[in-house]
């Protein structure tokens, strides 16, 4: 499944996140990269260097937008001014799809700037799905919703995280940005089987996959994006792509960012796994989930 309606029928390969410490290297050396993912909010400004850099990147590379503040899980309604700014950026980048998280982070107009877990109830799922539809209709671009990593579970939840994710994306008829590192982190923090998670979600909706590193503490794991991908996460990636087929994949590295070459090298490991998988999974039918 190289392409589907949820990623605009593209086949983007392996990308990395566009980060400030790499700007100079990218703009002067022009390395070959399948695509870059940008954090939308960093470019939802009225002028200046961020947009100048973005325009230079857009001249040479494919760019996909990834957001951190639409907060589909917030009880609050969508912020119309924010959506208008986001749409201006969508037009500028011509992103084939746009992703954001299945989480909340604002309430009563106050923003935590965090990706907080939603209580997994039917009311929350319906509400999030309605907001996703509204955003997609306004932005006129396919949306993919990312599963977050979390450190707490609500007593109010009446379903598992993968049931909740499925409920939301089916109701919204949208894509999934499947973050296999987040599944690993949450599985360790909440003691569930990450392979069960991968087996229970609608694989045909997966538009993109995220991989990343994290930090393990004594009693929990934090999703810090400051290390290479660990072998158990690669195994999850292998399993995920055995269900989804070849899927646009992106490495996130957001803190203690090493050189561009090191980040890109780490990302390109995904090609090996995908290559093996696509051959191995040639006889399988990913849409049979």
């Amino acid at each position, binding site marked *: 499944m190289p392409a589907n309606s949820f990623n605009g029928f593209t086949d983007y390969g392996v990308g990395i996140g566009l980060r400030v410490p790499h700007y100079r290297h990218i703009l002067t050396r022009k390395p070959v990269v399948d695509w870059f993912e940008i954090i939308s*909010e960093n470019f*939802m*400004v*009225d*002028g*200046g*260097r*961020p*947009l*100048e850099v973005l325009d230079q990147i857009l001249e040479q590379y494919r760019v996909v937008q990834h957001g951190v*503040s639409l907060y589909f899980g*917030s*009880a*609050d309604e969508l*912020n119309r001014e*924010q959506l208008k700014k986001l749409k201006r950026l969508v037009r500028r980048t011509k992103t084939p799809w746009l992703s954001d998280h299945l989480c*909340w982070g*604002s*309430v*009563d*107009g*106050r*923003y*935590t*700037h*965090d990706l*907080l877990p939603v*209580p997994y*109830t*039917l*009311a*929350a799922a319906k*509400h999030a799905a309605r907001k996703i539809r509204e955003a997609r209709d306004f932005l006129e671009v396919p949306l993919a919703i990312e599963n977050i990593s979390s*450190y*707490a*579970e*609500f*007593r*109010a939840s009446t379903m598992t995280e993968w049931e909740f994710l499925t409920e939301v994306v089916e109701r919204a008829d949208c894509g999934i940005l499947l973050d296999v590192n987040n599944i690993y982190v949450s599985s360790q*923090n*909440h*003691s569930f089987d990450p392979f069960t998670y991968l087996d229970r979600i609608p694989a045909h909706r997966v538009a993109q996959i995220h991989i990343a590193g994290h930090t393990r503490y004594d*009693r*929990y794991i*934090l999703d810090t994006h400051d290390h290479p991908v660990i072998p158990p996460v690669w195994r999850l990636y292998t399993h995920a792509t055995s269900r989804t087929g070849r899927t646009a994949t992106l490495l996130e590295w957001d803190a203690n960012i090493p050189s561009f070459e090191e980040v890109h090298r780490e990302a390109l490991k995904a090609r090996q796994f995908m290559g093996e998988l696509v051959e191995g999974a040639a006889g399988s039918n990913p849409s049979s989930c």
Partner: protein
Amino acid sequence: MSAPAPNSSPRVSRRQPTPKAPDARTVASLSRLQLLVASATMRELNEDFEMRPRWTDGRSMRARASRFIKPNDRLTAFERLEIYNRQYWFRLLESFHEDFPGLRAVLGQERFVRLAVAYLSAHPSTSFTLRNLGRHLVRFLETQPSHTAFNPRLVLDLARLEWAHIEAFDNAAEPPVTADALLDANPAELRLRLQPHVTLLHLAYPLDDFLIALRHVEDSRAETSNAVAAQQSRRGIHPVRSPKPQPVWLATHRHRNCVHYKRLTVAQFQLLDALRQGLPLAEACELVLRDCFRTKPEHLRRWFGDWALLGWFWLPKE
């Protein structure tokens, strides 16, 4: 983190039952649950950067958290919620630090964190982007003299300049008026607007030089040994000295997508300020020629030529 205020919250009987948490089975209930969680995660940490043991009503936070968060075999509900409480403050303080390095250098780490916590508690973010986190800081400082007591004018001027720097970095740039267009216009009716990225500042200290030196030192630090930087930081040494008083008239602006601080004369400042306030060009010029007796009409022509080259003026479409 600021010291806890033990007597500031109403105490209730510890026997009084902790209220039931919302079940999120309706959107209204989801909203109530999110308000509860947001209140907990955005609440000030204690002086050890931990979640406070008592809720605002004096009840046990452990009991309160366990009403809506499940514990697991390694962490209590309180500890799981505390991860988010700590992350909230560390994220915002890091952002505040990045936006106001000069204030941190002048105030020192302890006073800076106290200010940041007080400000962010009074003005939690109401924007989807952290870029706007400091937009109320100057107003906050004007009304909270305890945070500027160290040196009121210096602290306020730094906050003004550092916020102007943020505005210069990514505010809009309208299509500029050309020098030729200025020559063709009727000065009695022409109301020039300053670009949104231009801010005029009258400072009591040469803080432009101070911030440039500070950034230079921090850039050098980033390129040299981390160990040296850590050592200096532990000792509380900052190699850039606080400036001595000296009035400065300044425009912060963006040129070729870099932020610049441009020194102005008093007459130049007065002229630009008059235009900013909406006076027609002729009136603004007359004001300056009247008040600043050394200023001649040929000076004004040269200044406008320079400013037009920098693209500082624009005109709204009819």
